[in-house]
């Protein structure tokens, strides 16, 4: 059955259903209780599941992740909310030195099924440390699964999968898409949403493949609309999983279009696009008609919000990059 919901509501529903299904699932974070989170993603959960399962934590991000690791070792499945992307850095130590390594360190005998939800990215006119795209740090860390949702139904199923996963998952939510609504299908088979780890072609096209994740998927779909007016047919792939990468889906598309653009808000150097471009050059060297193009944030810290519109990739930049692939 489908209903029209916002991404925030879809994530809320995924948490609710996961908690109903498994009483080991807990929600932890700053202001997730009575307030329902600063984005209202956990709204009503504490009322329904109680303070034992929906836990307002002290203001200590390292503490949130560190104690979740302990609870996971005891048998719980904590789903953490880091209030804003920039606030994950005090928890970086626990995520990288502990959460990511528990299975490896124990030769596979211990698991820490913790999900770390992080609203990420810019475009909401906010102050410093509220518009970051830190995904590459985590994708660069072996032992973590890293995913990014782009729309309500995807967010719902990705989160359900993340909570089921026995590996720790860093779950990125594009905050500027929280209030965009879409159809939510809560029957998995009918939803057509692939399992966590898979990418998905979200728009078919002929001339060039555009790969994106999170908020940039919407931007790339807009670029595809724009492209149609200019006679350029873009195929848009929602990467969904940043670690591991589903290169089969990406390569299958690029083998056909022979051109690729990779898009993210995060700075360019050593970002996700660099990895994907490298893999495409490895696998499709003889098929590519042009070097893989990158449309990204610039290699400077996120700017003051009054100028973020110039910083963030938009449909025009994506389309111009796609056009460049025809100049070779």
């Amino acid at each position, binding site marked *: 059955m489908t209903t029209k919901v916002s991404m925030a509501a879809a994530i809320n529903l995924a948490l609710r259903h996961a908690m109903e299904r498994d009483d080991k699932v807990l929600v932890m974070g700053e202001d997730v209780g009575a307030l329902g989170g600063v984005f209202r993603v956990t709204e009503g959960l504490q009322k329904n599941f109680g303070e034992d399962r929906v836990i307002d934590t*002290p203001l200590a991000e390292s503490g949130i992740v560190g104690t979740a690791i302990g609870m996971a070792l005891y048998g719980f499945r904590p789903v953490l909310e880091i209030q804003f992307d920039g606030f994950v*850095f005090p928890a970086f130590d626990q995520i990288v030195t502990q959460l990511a390594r528990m299975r490896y360190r124990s030769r596979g005998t211990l698991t820490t099924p913790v999900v770390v939800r992080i609203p990420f990215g810019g475009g909401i006119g906010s*102050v410093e440390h509220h518009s970051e795209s830190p995904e590459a740090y985590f994708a660069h860390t072996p032992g973590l699964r890293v995913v990014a949702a782009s729309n309500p139904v995807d967010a719902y199923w990705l989160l359900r999968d993340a909570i089921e996963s026995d590996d720790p998952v860093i779950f990125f939510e594009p905050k500027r898409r929280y209030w965009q609504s879409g159809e939510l299908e809560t029957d998995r088979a009918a939803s057509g949403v692939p399992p966590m780890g898979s990418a998905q072609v979200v728009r078919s096209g002929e001339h060039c493949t555009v790969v994106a994740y999170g908020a940039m998927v919407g931007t790339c779909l807009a670029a595809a609309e724009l492209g149609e007016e200019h006679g350029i047919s873009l195929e848009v792939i929602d990467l969904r999983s940043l670690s591991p990468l589903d290169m089969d889906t990406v390569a299958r598309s690029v083998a056909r279009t022979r051109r690729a653009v990779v898009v993210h808000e995060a700075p360019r150097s050593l970002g996700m696009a660099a990895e994907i471009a490298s893999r495409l050059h490895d696998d499709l060297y003889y098929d590519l008609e042009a070097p893989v193009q990158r449309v990204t944030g610039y290699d400077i*810290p996120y700017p003051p919000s009054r100028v973020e519109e110039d910083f963030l990739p938009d449909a025009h930049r994506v389309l111009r990059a796609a056009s460049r692939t025809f100049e070779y």
Partner: protein
Amino acid sequence: MSEFEDPIVQLLDPAGQLSDAAAAGAFSTEQLVGLYRDMVLLRRLDAEATALQRHGELGLWAPLKGQEAAQIGSARALGPRDFAFSSYREHGVAYVRGVDPVDMLSFWRGTQHLAWAPKKFGMYGYQIMIGAHALHATGYAMGIAKAGNVDRADPSENEAVVAYFGDGANSEGDLNEALVFAAVYNAPVVFFCQNNHWAISEPLTRQTRVPLARRADGVGISGMRIDGNDVLACYQATSEALERAHSGGGPTYIEAVTYRVGPHTTADDPTRYRDSVELDQWLLRDPIERLAALLRAQGALSAEVETDLEQDAEALGERMRAGCKNLPEPILDEQFEFAYAEIDPDLRRQRAELAEHLAAVGRA
């Protein structure tokens, strides 16, 4: 006024009565009127900025209403050679340090990350990361001590630092590490905690089981618990702590017990999580009203003084409204110059790419 029984230092009670006349005698009428004036203007500054946010001129604002005494009282104790590090709510401290309120707005409007020149005002800019600056304050103070600028023959040459933070910050690792460093190096730093009882939606009890001032004992430094809505107690306690720091006596932790009357920020709605009864009780302890009551009783608050002050507040509001809209817009191209001492060829290429793109789409 507090869930804990530990004593609270108070010089001026909510009714405007001096509870320790001897200590309060240290304040001249002129000084009392000055503190009153500061708080009234600060309340206007805060209300004006809140209104500007409501009108879409600011992206966000963190109101300080209710915390005027804690900020004005403590900041007025700082000397010109002292330095402050603050969170994002200390508009009153910035005001006392001489920062133009219009410059404060630039941060919240999104035109710049650092709203004023720290060295010029003896105060670093707004810090968003909770508690991060407590370490910076401690390190700055360690620098002061290393440079020999404590316990000098001429006391006017002494320097010290005040770190401003809230009850929630006490839970962060950085704050606790700052206390450890400050203690073991005997750094000339004052930790000024405005316990306003709420970290967004989380009450004080989510951060601590004991009064925050007891943190001082845990690391072996001086601690004080004061009425944060009593501007005289805030001034006196901070003066004492700074005197200790200046003379080589090391750090002090001050817990100023106050209340966040408004929302966490303009994006917050406190009616979702807190009781209006609690708010009503705190409104009876207003920091400005009690000083007004004292001044009236002393005959120091004439109609003329009040009228002048109202006019000044009105002028401040007008200046903020006009200044906000005229703040220079940031230019992304310029931002490329600030990430490194020298811009490298690679980044220069990206900068050129930006210019080329903006020109191509007609946004240059």
